């Protein structure tokens, strides 16, 4: 318990320090956000107008504005996830390449496929079992005996027969 409190004291101290230094940090930020850092976030965003074109390659002016918005947010110190969450809240989950696991996407993209896979496997195994039970009275045809050499499979023996012709 004391340990924890000690830790939190540290945190507060750290935070206060950080706050004190913040204005300095903003001015001192020599490294601007690079295009690569912006693209890293933008590639998983699809603006609602240019559907199927990820934000990082979309040439429209609107998408350029969104990229600048990402740059601003990154320079404010927001994380990738925070920025993606911001876009989802503003414009709906449809702008994200990875639909968040909630609402329609949870049902349609997770629960439904899992159910389908289960049903599929069940049907498939039943089919396999059903097939193993003979359906016709006639016994299944045995493939014609091979050359007797197990290393030669059926088609090799066929090939050889063909050459012998």
């Amino acid at each position: 318990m004391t340990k924890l409190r000690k830790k939190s004291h540290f945190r507060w101290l750290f935070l206060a320090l950080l706050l004190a230094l913040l204005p300095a940090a903003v001015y001192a930020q020599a490294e601007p956000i690079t295009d690569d850092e912006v693209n890293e976030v933008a590639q998983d965003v699809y603006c609602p107008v240019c559907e199927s074109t990820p934000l990082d390659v979309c040439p429209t002016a609107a998408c350029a504005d969104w990229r600048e918005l990402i740059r601003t947010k990154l320079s404010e110190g927001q994380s990738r996830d925070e920025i993606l969450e911001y876009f989802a809240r503003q414009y709906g989950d449809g702008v994200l390449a990875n639909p968040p696991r909630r609402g329609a996407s949870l049902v349609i993209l997770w629960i439904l496929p899992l159910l389908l896979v289960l049903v599929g496997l069940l049907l498939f195994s039943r089919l396999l079992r059903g097939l193993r039970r003979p359906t016709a009275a006639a016994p299944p045809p045995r493939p014609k005996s091979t050359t007797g050499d197990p290393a030669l499979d059926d088609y090799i023996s066929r090939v050889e027969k063909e050459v012998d012709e």
Partner: protein
Amino acid sequence: MIADIGYLTLLTAFFCAVYAVVAAAYGARSGDDRWVRSARNALIATFPLLLLAAGLVITALLTGDFSIAYVSQVSSRGMPTYLKVTALWGGQAGSLLFWNVLLSAFTAAAMLSKWRQQKELMPYVIIVSGMTQVFFLLVSTFLEDPFTRNLVIPADGNGLNPLLRHPGMIIHPPMLYLGFVGFTIPFSFAMAALMSNQMSDNWIHTTRRWTLVAWLFLGLGLILGGRWAYDVLGWGGYWGWDPVENASFMPWLAGTAFLHSVMIQEKMRMFKMWNMFLVVLTYCLVILGTFVVRSGVISSVHAFAQSAIGPFFFGFIVIMFTFSAYWITKRRDSLRSENALASYLSREAAFLYNNFLIIAILGVVFLFTYYPILSELFTGEKGFVGPPVYERALAPLFAALVLLMGVAPLTMWYRTSIQRLGRAVLWPAVGSTAFVVVLFILGVRLWPALLGFWLVSFSAVLTILEFTKGTRARMRKGESPWTAFTTLMARNRRRYGGYWIHMGVLIMAFGIVADGIYQSETQIRLQAGESITLGDFEMRFNSVSRFPGADDLLITKADVDLFKNGKLVRTLTPQIELYQRTGQPMTIPSARSTITEDFYVILVNWEPTTADAATFRIFLNPLINWIWTGGLVFVMGTLIAAWPEREKVPVRARRPAAAVAGD
């Protein structure tokens, strides 16, 4: 003038097709052969009529007859002649007409070549393929008439969509359409077999080559589409899980499943019902694919294809699906398997696993592609599934399929012992593991890449061994290695064509794994004379120039020097092409392409105000050429498998002559 003759021609074709369906149905019912023959002639007649209609559209495009709305939509005076011709499929109405031409060509060819052999099936083949033709002519004649006139004749047309002014895009749609249309033939024969109650494997043998050819064109269309995306869309990739791409990928998947599972029916007389279902599924996916491509129901980069013909397509799919379901149910007794599955380790079981995996992939792609619609339907909010989700969901399924591709050919019909299989895979497994260890030592450390490379190399070794095994069996009889190898393939085209296809897919898979995991990229703003380093490459930005191109084009071209390990290897010229009339920009990448990697650069931005600075995006795509190379092997394999075999009789007749020549 052209518009009147054209529309009349279309209308005549439509009534011919309607007559063909009605006459064939009456002929089949009454047993009067004259009606069937008349129906056949009417259906065949749609081909020259539609060819004439298409010729008239092309004439109007070439002469710049802007009184026709379609001509003014997709062409302009300044366009080069070849683009005016290909503008036939550059827009909605023209594409549908083109679809109609191809469909009538396919059905006419099937009628003429199979008429004698398949007398009993023919009335029903005419009914089913005729129904498809009637539907598409209905759309072309009454909804998307390419001969509609402009109220006011414009001085010049809008010009072809810039995205379509690329060689890849000129041949890509015809390939896809040929693939789409081709699947109508196996579907018609399958339905004809059901309707005439001729439940032998006859329809499968008859349409095998048709199916393969349709499948080849569809595959070729997909590969060309990927190449086009890589060369023109300028995002460094070749496949984006775009709804329109998926719409053509899905029938290809269903066709792949079908091509595999028919072999079980031919060999073991099993899964007849399943094969029928796969044919119906492929056909429905083809119609659905055309609908998605042409209607823009799911917005996509191909949104230029939008229109309101959706409900008609949807209605037609429902009708055809119900129709097929009715006949399958009606004939379910004769569709029972004649044999039982003897073992889980057998060729037929392997084909079954293959079908399960392919259908699972198809299901995932289907669900993700239509998720936006489903989501909007249930929540009112448009959802979206991006490429990363596809990749995560499909990677394990594709991995399993690659493994199966290598192992399945080792299994035997009926039953295979586990020991035998174990012996056969032991050394290839050791070999591919050694290969992956070498890759690890060379610096490949990501486990998905290592696993992917292992699977692909393992299956590739097994496939190559299939070739060597057969060749050596022939060589034991004294044939030279080359003769043994070529005769082996000539005599067993289907089997070895299939293995070549597998090799092509594996080569592609190797490239896909490498590029998917090890693609690197960067974007940077450079001053003239500045350089950027990526991998072993250094790119120096020299200058930018802006000048007008053909028609209304404004080209902004950057000039960069590419150095590898300090040595100048190539000057690249990425450009931005602006079509001023529509204001549509195209970023045309420039690439230095080798078998090991592509250095691919895009000019992202350049403003005349800061003339000496430009923004570039650079991709380093490892092994991407393997994808195109694999594509070529894939095509070659399909051609081997589909190449007509000499009829049995002429072969026997030829033999004495050959013997004489040998003496």
